[in-house]
């Protein structure tokens, strides 16, 4: 089984508490996206297209759905005899066991898993981001630089740089400093949460880090600064495609609107970089005689009698006659009655919106509205 060029460790244990109702019963990587996907599909499909055949998926928070969804990895062509997908929840060993305390701890607890493959490099990614990336290019760059670690970065607008982990680099893109959410950013190169490590080097830092009781066992907060302090050779790899952290209701909504924007670089139709998903089986969508659908993505199994504008509808969504949906995201299995108005909202899985209901942001805030799992919305709201 040993001696792989590289393997990936996909961090999928995050709660995503800022997604409110959406993550009450499932982990953030399992949140529905784009009408038929879950957020984790992007990272998994990237692995497949980049030729990575071994992926450890680290789960912890509300793992049932995610575990079942990833399954044996077949949807992503990752059902392999040697390697493939392994779901890795926290476990008990001879000397006890404990929850994954931080991102670095999660990987540390799976040292044995990684060592089975004796990989030269380990790619650490998260299941929280929407992006299509060829990790091969990152690997090539990493090898060329002879780096101990290469961190993928993306240029963000300067005024937003204080929301990200920022890499300060020299002229050769060698990382000289890492700042988590700096007040006065010196660079606008934000970490994408995509790290490629030389495994031998990372392993020694993970072991060291475990012995430090003060450490929070986090890649960003502990491992990267420690490696930089020790003068490790670390490079920033500039990625210039679409990348979005969909950690908030607003950003999740924005990413969906990007799907509908012809000028956006986020597309789902690239035949060479399809996003694979665990496909539930649904009939074609039915568009009735009185329906009107424009500037929208609609998935299979949906039955549309109303008006849909600039929205994303997932599978098994029913929209009754006389209803209007504008600038919204409708997640799977939602039933919308007749004469409903929904504007700038995310309607979460299984919700039932009764006839005549009106869901739109308040005039003052204009914030995207979220209706959570299985809520029943009646007309008096």
């Amino acid at each position, binding site marked *: 089984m040993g001696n792989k060029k590289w393997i990936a460790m996909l961090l999928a244990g995050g709660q995503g508490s800022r997604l409110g109702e959406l993550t009450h019963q499932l982990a953030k990587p399992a949140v529905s996206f784009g009408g038929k996907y879950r957020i984790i599909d992007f990272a998994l499909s990237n692995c497949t297209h980049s030729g990575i055949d071994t992926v450890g998926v680290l789960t912890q928070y509300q793992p049932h759905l995610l575990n079942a969804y990833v399954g044996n990895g077949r949807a992503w062509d990752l059902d392999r005899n040697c390697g493939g997908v392994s779901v890795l929840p926290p476990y008990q060993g001879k000397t006890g066991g404990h929850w994954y305390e931080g991102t670095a701890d999660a990987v540390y607890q799976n040292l044995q898993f990684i060592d089975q493959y004796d990989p030269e490099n380990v790619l650490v990614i998260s299941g929280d981001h929407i992006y299509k990336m060829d990790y091969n290019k990152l690997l090539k760059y990493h090898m060329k630089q002879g780096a101990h670690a290469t961190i993928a970065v993306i240029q963000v607008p300067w005024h937003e740089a204080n929301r990200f982990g920022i890499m300060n680099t020299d002229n050769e893109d060698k990382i000289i400093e890492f700042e988590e959410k700096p007040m006065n950013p010196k660079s606008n190169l934000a970490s994408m949460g995509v790290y490629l490590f030389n495994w031998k080097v990372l392993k020694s830092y993970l072991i060291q880090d475990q012995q430090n009781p003060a450490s929070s066992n986090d890649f960003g907060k502990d491992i990267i600064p420690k490696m930089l302090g020790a003068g490790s050779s670390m490079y920033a790899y500039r990625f210039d495609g679409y990348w979005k952290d969909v950690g908030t209701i607003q950003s999740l909504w924005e990413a969906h609107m990007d799907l509908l924007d012809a000028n956006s670089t986020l597309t789902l139709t690239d035949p060479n970089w399809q996003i694979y998903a665990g*496909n539930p089986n649904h009939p074609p969508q039915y568009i009735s005689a009185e329906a009107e659908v424009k500037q929208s993505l609609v998935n299979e199994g949906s039955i549309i009698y109303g008006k849909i504008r600039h929205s994303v509808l997932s599978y098994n969504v029913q929209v009754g006659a006389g209803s209007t949906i504008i600038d919204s995201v409708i997640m799977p299995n939602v039933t919308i009655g007749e004469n409903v108005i929904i504007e700038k909202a995310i309607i979460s899985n299984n919700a039932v919106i009764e006839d005549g209901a009106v869901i739109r942001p308040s005039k003052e805030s204009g914030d995207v509205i979220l209706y959570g799992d299985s809520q029943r919305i009646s007309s008096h709201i």
Partner: protein
Amino acid sequence: MGSVLGVINLINEKPFLKELTQHRCMASVPFAGRYRLIDFTLSNFINASITKVAVFTKDKYRSVMDHLGSGKEWDLDRRNGGLFILPPIHPDERLKGDLEHFHDHLEFFQRSHADTVVISPGLHVSKIDYNEVIAQHKAEQADITVVYKDYQGDPVEKPVYHTCSIDDKGTVTDIQLYTYPMPGEAVCLETFVISKDLLIELITKCVENGEYDLIKDAVKANLHSLRVKSYKFTGEMPFIHSVDSFHSGNMEFLKPEIVRSYFYETWDLYTKVKHEAPAYYGASSRTSYSLIANGCEIEGVVENSIIFRGVKIHPGAVVKNSIIMQKGEIGPGAYIENVIMDKQARIKENATVVGGLQPVVIKKEEII
């Protein structure tokens, strides 16, 4: 109830869909936006827990083999049982009939632990509950149960159907081969339930006597020596026997009650999964009364049509009363009406194709 073996018999197919069956067998003709005809039978088998299925193919089977793969989509990749594709074993010789083909693969039947066999031609667009058929077969202590449906629809152009005479006890007293059925006449759906042992016996005996036709030599010839019962299928099922009826059978799927009955009120219908994105409707799109599959990009007008996966309809294009199969493309400003477009066909910018009473068929990969 013992275990049941499913047999999909593609030997007697008649290629009456012209261009659509030029390169593929009937069973793999695309239908209703994302399916192939064989999906209906396979899904019905799975619903009845028939998990060992043999597909006896004759010719032009690349398409059906590609579609079926390992059988995974129908849960037929099993350690025990699963999917078996059985092509003719003497490809150079003309097959004398389905019984010869069954005989060539007799070991398949002999080795199976099943006690009952369901045989279906794999091309009916129906949701038959085989559990019910098998239960009736056993309750009636029938040797053979013949599934039939009362004919409906326009008169057939060619005598492709066999009709049954049935007495008031449900016994099949005669089978008329190759007829033009009138509405209400019992059309044999070439779907049978039979015990495995009896099937093996009939196959062996017929072939020894130089008889090779299942329906003629095994069923019809034994109507008086065996207990042959009938099962009347009363559910939805368009009779497909011509390009015309194929078109209208598809169009049935634009009726909400038909959509509900096939897709939502009965068991799931499985097919090969493609990883297509959701369908995108552009700003200039006007789609109504249509069935649309994933992966489509629609910028034009679509009315009263069935659009398969990955079809592109450019701005200014108009599609009416048509069926566009996988990866078709309708150029800007083009107009099509009453058309069946096979896979990957393309209509050029501003071209017009209008079918008459008979829909126009555009061949696979053809460009107009």
